[in-house]
């Protein structure tokens, strides 16, 4: 059981490293495209696709970045009450926090997929990308956040096991 946990954590570390590179790249490209858009506006040839593409890249960046932030416990939250808790109450609040988060991620995945499939025939006007793929950013992000929630839970469980031994 522990072995599987370790393998999973290792796997998620790799996934998150890849996400980290994707994040840096997408921010780099949105910068370059937006800058090029500014330059081209002054030259006098406005681009039709650039703004749309940067918006879509940004939405993917947000959903991926949120997944990493969630793994590192960096999403903005009210910690003041939880910090006061001790012992089993603290444990319970930790599990509840992840449990509730996972419920929301499942909503995001299931209904996000439904939403995306509703847009199969719609095409973004500037870039010509099917809106289906753009809307997929939400279920993909939800899925990665769910996987990271599981990683945090497993890590916590494995640590707890070690201290009790």
């Amino acid at each position, binding site marked *: 059981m522990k072995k599987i946990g370790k393998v999973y954590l290792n796997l998620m570390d790799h996934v998150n490293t890849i996400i980290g590179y994707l994040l840096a790249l997408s921010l780099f490209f949105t910068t370059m495209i937006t800058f090029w858009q500014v330059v081209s506006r002054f030259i006098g040839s406005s681009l039709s696709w650039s703004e749309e593409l940067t918006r879509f890249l940004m939405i993917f960046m*947000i959903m991926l*970045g949120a997944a990493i932030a969630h793994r590192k416990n960096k*999403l903005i939250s*009210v910690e003041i009450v939880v910090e006061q808790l001790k012992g089993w109450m603290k444990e319970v*609040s930790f599990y509840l926090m992840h449990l509730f988060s996972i419920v*929301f991620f499942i909503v995001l995945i299931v*209904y996000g997929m439904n*939403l995306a499939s509703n847009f199969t025939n719609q095409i973004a006007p500037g870039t010509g990308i099917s809106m289906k793929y753009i809307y997929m950013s*939400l279920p993909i992000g939800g899925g990665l956040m769910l996987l990271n929630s599981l990683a945090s839970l497993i890590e916590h469980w494995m640590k707890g096991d070690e201290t009790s031994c």
Partner: protein
Amino acid sequence: MLIAFFISLFVLMFLGVPIAISLGLSTVLGITMHEVIPLETVPQRIFVSLNSFPLMAIPFFILAGNLMGAGSMSKRLVNFASSLVGHFTGGLAMVAIVTSMFFAAISGSGAATTAAIGSILIPAMVARGYKIEYAAANQAVAGALGIIIPPSVAMILYGVAAEVSISDLFIAGILPGFLITISLLISAFFIAKKNGYQGTEKQPFPSIVKAFFEAFFAILMPVIVLGGIYSGFFTPTEASVVAVVYALVVGLFIYRDITIPQLAVVFKDSAISSSIIMLVIGAAGLFGFFIGINSVPDMIYDTISSFITNKYVFLLVVNIILFFTGMFLEGGAAILILVPLLFGTATNLGVDPVHFGVIMVVNLALGLVTPPVGIDLFVVSQLTNLSIVRIARYAIPLILILVLDILIITYFPPLSTWLPSLLK
């Protein structure tokens, strides 16, 4: 149903569930009890709130601030400010305030400003005999200028949530920002006088000129960014991306103090910091939509207007609400939750939307330094290894000064509305 919705929101938030997820999940609960709306609305509203070009200014300003912090720009700004005001009584405390103002004119974030300037100046102040608690408190409060002096991430959030022109908000923030800067400088002088904090040696004119030229490209940055926005040359988003490219060019080719591996880390960290804020924006959009279709803002207006009809009394109540919200909630999240709730009432009572934005932003700037939850306090506490409680005690006089500033800004609207009207 609405009661269940708000109770679930509070329970989730205080359980430590991330605010974005708390907002999302309580809306899911609200929607399931509401037969008409499908749950597909949840991902859709999140998407719609994020699919906005003005919002893209947020990652770019965060990135520009981080690039400045990574290179030597902040150090150069400190040197220049020291050469100017360092020799006054309480000089270094003033340097911290002035440099934070400059830095804030680029970064737009209180925590980034505090971290970048504090890491240089707090040790320098301690070396000159300043009490470390005071040095930390002074830096934390000066860092709060980050969200008042434009460009400001908090103002972008307000502008998007309330559908108010971000350029107008940026212009409106200038005079209140100066008011707060000057009041902090005066306080630094009197505190130094009382404690005998001497200034550094007065610099001869040539070395001021030298410091100016060494910091030239850093000083030019706010000029380009803000000048570009105010002259109508750039939109705020365009200005933000120009700031990034400018910081890249200066860091890589002129000062040559940013390396490529360092860049990859800065880009990744900036992307994550942006995602953290922007996930809340998405969820708050969903929240705002849900309370909107349930006419919650109207109910709030009806309730409030039944016993408050005077806008000045209302603004006092708003200030009190914001003060306590700021104690517990991160500023950006507070704006995104409170704007949909309070904005309608404010405009119905005749409060100028831009003025209301400035009031919200300065209050939440104060929230950065009020315990128990104040991000600037966390940053200086990490920098100095002092407990938040010890720093907070020294921050109290400075907090009182900010409260006074906020009352002036609230009850003297021209401070916020005069400049935008002038430039129209």
